[in-house]
């Protein structure tokens, strides 16, 4: 799979997470879904679930598009002073 395709998949994951965060059509469930563990209403428990989804999403993104750098790339190349100095 080329890196462009991987990056597109990452963008898709971000889009899905953004849509889920803005899922206003689910707000009608706020007073209908039973309390999770007896104290978490839907407006709260949704984001507990969202947190674990975020964790899974980050794991997929890391697998898909976060390669470790080859050692030679990290070798300092500081022939010139950074701009602003």
């Amino acid at each position, binding site marked *: 799979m080329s890196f462009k395709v991987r990056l597109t998949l990452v963008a898709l994951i971000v889009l899905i997470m953004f849509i889920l965060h803005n899922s206003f059509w689910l707000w009608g469930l706020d007073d209908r879904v039973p309390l999770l563990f007896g104290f978490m209403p839907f407006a*709260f428990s949704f984001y507990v679930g969202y947190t674990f989804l975020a*964790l899974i999403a980050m794991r997929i993104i890391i697998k898909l598009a976060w390669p470790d*750098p080859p050692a030679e790339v990290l070798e300092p190349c500081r022939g010139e002073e950074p701009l602003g*100095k």
Partner: protein
Amino acid sequence: MTNTVGIGVILLYFTVLVGIGIYGAKVSLKTREDYFLAGRGLGSIAVFMALFASNITAFTIIGHAGFAYGTGYGAYGYVIGWSIFITPFTYYLVGYRSWLLGKRYGYATQPQVFGGIFNSKLVALLFLVLLLYYTLPYLVVSIIGGSLAFTTITDGVVPYWLSSLVIIAISLVYTIPAGLRGTVWTDIFQGAIFLSVACLLLMAVARALGGFSAITEQIVIENPAMLQRGLSPGIAPINWFSFAFINSIAVIVFPQMFTRILAARSSSNLKRVSLYYPLALAAIFGVSTLLGVWGSVAIPGLVGKDADNIVPMLIHQYLSPTWMILGLVVILAIVKSSIDSQLLSVTHLVTDDLLPRFKRFNSESAVFWGRILLVVFAAIAYYIALVRPAAILSIAAFAFSGFSVMLPVMIGALYWPRANKYGACAALIFPALMLHIWYLEILPKWTTFGFMPVFPAFVLAIVTLVVVSYLTPAPPPEQKEKTFGIFDRVFTGGGN
């Protein structure tokens, strides 16, 4: 607060911080990179706690609980929902590529990274000016918020002026000798304290109110509107959508956060941080949300700013004096861990990016001047926190939005080889101006189409970057190669 145990706990807490400062100074080298970036050698836990503790301010426990008190459970998703995913994602999106360039070319701040990518001193200067412009008021507001909380929780025994002085002075005690290493070590200590004590505090309050289920049933019966997001006008969908462009994506632009990313030892450290960051963020804001909502039925009737005192009031009314002491330590830990990092980052920017424009320093002199400037900025911030000028507070009100609208330039610089310095300059200046015009209400409100100003300003930044870059000459190939050659080797193994 006057009991011996209380004073003992506070003294122990301060002693640990001072000890960390002294030890940090002993192991630190007197070089610029070691003082401001801890020698780019921070491990996973250090980076994680440094980012987390710097990210969490007095707002988390005080302001957010007050907001949840009036808004209900919806406050959780509104304030932190999108951040739970997007903040750690920006550590990948912007952080990792910036870190790669930092390792390779020695960049230590945003002006250096983005001035370097565009090969432009003007881009570097714009980053410097805007970051200082937004960070200084934000620092002052952090001090004001923390000091007010300190004074409230001590029932006024410690007056406001003394609270501010204590908070700033203790921060300086370990930051001056040990630089970033000192702030990071104290972040680990303070972050662990406030995360664990906040969870214990939640359980203690729940117990005092009859248990998790009992207090929730009481809310369902007495104040059912707290469960329904649709009934809170403050978090109407258009605000909910707009707010996603304020605090969550601004975090990576904060200079204190960006610098900590650059200080990571390896790519694996950054991966671990990004992976587990959602859990910590969700936990601390979850505690704050629940305390605020529970407070709405336990201590009803608070209006406006009074609601911001709900956590100290819950502790005061329902828990033993020992909890007041622990609560005070939590507030101090949260406030100081963000203030020290902001102070150090402002000092870092001036030492590394402003002073060298007038005079060149060797590495040891830079550390010396950094320490002097820390004291100078702390004194200025203290004075402003005492005077509280309206102009500074109004800038702080949209500082988050200001940081956010700088993000498109950062992303463009790291992902779009056609982006050039003209586009970057225009995309930094124009949206910042528009943001001021909208917040100062020079233009009528309808010009933002009902959104918060940050959203149209963010879109303007993207459009300006693209249009101006296309209308002006492309960057020379060797300049593109300097940045994107590195990325090609890392992400595609040298091919495309």
